[in-house]
């Protein structure tokens, strides 16, 4: 039963992050996901200090706010100061993350958070973080409920805004000419990434969140040229990675989040290598074609 809850948590995070990650990759904004997942830290700490608890709602609000602040700062530096996007990202998220680290260390005595937990998370504790009703009825791990809700929200968001997300990613100028606000969809996507990051990384840590945001979509991108298939492959990969990562950690007696991130990397590498080999095998036919 413990294995089930851990794998379910991992899969939920992987699917939620991966679906949003598809659009990040296609917008050439993968590193924005990285930035947001780090930049939410000060928001979480401040929300914790203000509310004095680790309730989900204040955490989501705090993190959502700093996530959006980071997105806004990146856009602002990029547009107003003519800074390259990657430089703007680098400046913004390291600063915000460092502020978060300082806040944690200054208020270390009062805060039930530490850097390790933020970076690596502890997915192994998910099964004991139970949601207990007033009557003493145990409904299962609390994070599973939060992550399921988040996954539903993200699926709904993509379902409703699919055509706008696709168009603003592919051809922003044409989208604007049609009267579709590219800024609105940019910020909606970033808000979704912020909320997902926050609800996920409490249980799996920032590094695994980044791995899930980029790894499965990048692998799916290699495998297909159809956006809907890309989303589907990403989701399937997410489930596979959660399984494989858990059992790898079980055998090696290693960090579960770490193993899941490694499996993500192995998936990408093996698809890449397999495609290279397939291409080399098919290439001897090419010279003949060229002559003809």
């Amino acid at each position: 039963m413990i294995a089930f809850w851990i794998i379910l948590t991992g899969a939920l995070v992987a699917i939620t992050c991966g679906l949003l990650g598809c659009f990040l990759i296609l917008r050439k904004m993968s590193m924005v996901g990285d930035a947001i997942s780090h930049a939410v830290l000060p928001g979480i700490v401040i929300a914790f200090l203000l509310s004095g608890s680790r309730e989900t709602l204040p955490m989501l609000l705090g993190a959502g706010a700093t996530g959006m602040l980071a997105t806004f700062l990146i856009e602002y530096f990029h547009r107003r100061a003519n800074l390259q996007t990657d430089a703007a990202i680098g400046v913004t998220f390291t600063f915000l993350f460092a502020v978060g680290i300082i806040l944690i260390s200054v208020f270390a005595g009062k805060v039930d958070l530490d850097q390790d937990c933020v970076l690596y998370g502890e997915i192994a504790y998910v099964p004991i973080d139970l949601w207990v009703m007033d009557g003493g009825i145990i409904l299962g791990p609390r994070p599973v409920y939060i992550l399921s809700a988040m996954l539903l929200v993200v699926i709904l968001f993509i379902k409703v805004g699919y055509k706008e997300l696709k168009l603003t990613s592919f051809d922003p100028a044409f989208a604007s000419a049609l009267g579709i606000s590219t800024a609105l969809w940019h910020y909606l996507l970033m808000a979704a990434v912020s909320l997902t990051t926050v609800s996920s990384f409490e249980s799996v840590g920032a590094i695994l969140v980044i791995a899930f945001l980029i790894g499965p979509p990048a692998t799916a991108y290699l495998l297909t040229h159809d956006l809907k298939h890309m989303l589907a492959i990403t989701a399937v990969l997410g489930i596979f990675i959660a399984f494989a990562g858990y059992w790898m950690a079980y055998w090696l007696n290693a960090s579960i989040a770490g193993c899941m991130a490694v499996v993500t990397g192995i998936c990408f590498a093996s698809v890449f290598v397999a495609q290279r080999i397939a291409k080399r095998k098919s290439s001897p036919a090419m010279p003949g074609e060229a002559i003809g």
Partner: protein
Amino acid sequence: MIVHTQQPVLEVHDLTVSYSRKPVLWGVDFTLPTGCIAGIVGPNGAGKSTLLKSIMGLIPLSSGYVKLFDRPLEEVRHRVSYVPQRESVDWDFPVSVLDVVLMGRYGKVGLFRNTGTRDSAIALDCLDKVGMSAFAKRQISQLSGGQQQRVFLARALAQEADIYFMDEPFAGVDAATEQAIIKLLREMASANKTIVVVHHDLQSVRAYFDWLILLNMHLVAAGPTDQVFTEEMMQQAYGGRLSLLSQVGDVMEKRAFPSREH
């Protein structure tokens, strides 16, 4: 020299546009008649694409205004179509040719709704008009430059607009595609659609356009091609750089040498 028209389909009034306080377009002021094929011509960096983008409201204006069908753009968006430069998008994006053409229907479909069978029928019809119906299911990453341009054109057709703005539709396109496109534009113009094209090949100006907008940061001339396309006007727009170009152009025309096919 600026020739104005009565009841213009497009009115650009005293337009000034700047990038980070550096003006790139100065006091541009012209009007277009309905049903013409108009070319925007000028040297590199003259602000041709910028003019198109500011008409489409993609760039903030420093001063002046743009009116289409005597109304601001916001009110007539559904009657206006825009074809961005082919290089402005990522052609490895995971969508099919039909998907891209269907994007032309998004403005008509509206928010939260999906394109229906009628939209697909229109999209396929538009692909047929540009001779690309066999490619509907093809991924856009497999297209050649000319095919990419035809797909963009089909997407614009799917908008069923009354005025079309096209940014360099002939750039990097083979001669056959260029002829197919210009034939299509003529058909559209005879159906009373107005077409505005950013163009940089001076040789074909006289053959393609019946209205010409000559630009070099400020408006040099605007009016019917036979009045605007004169040595004097071109010298004004291009400065000394034109002489070499025009000599080469003359030689080409005399020999009736199909320069683009080699």
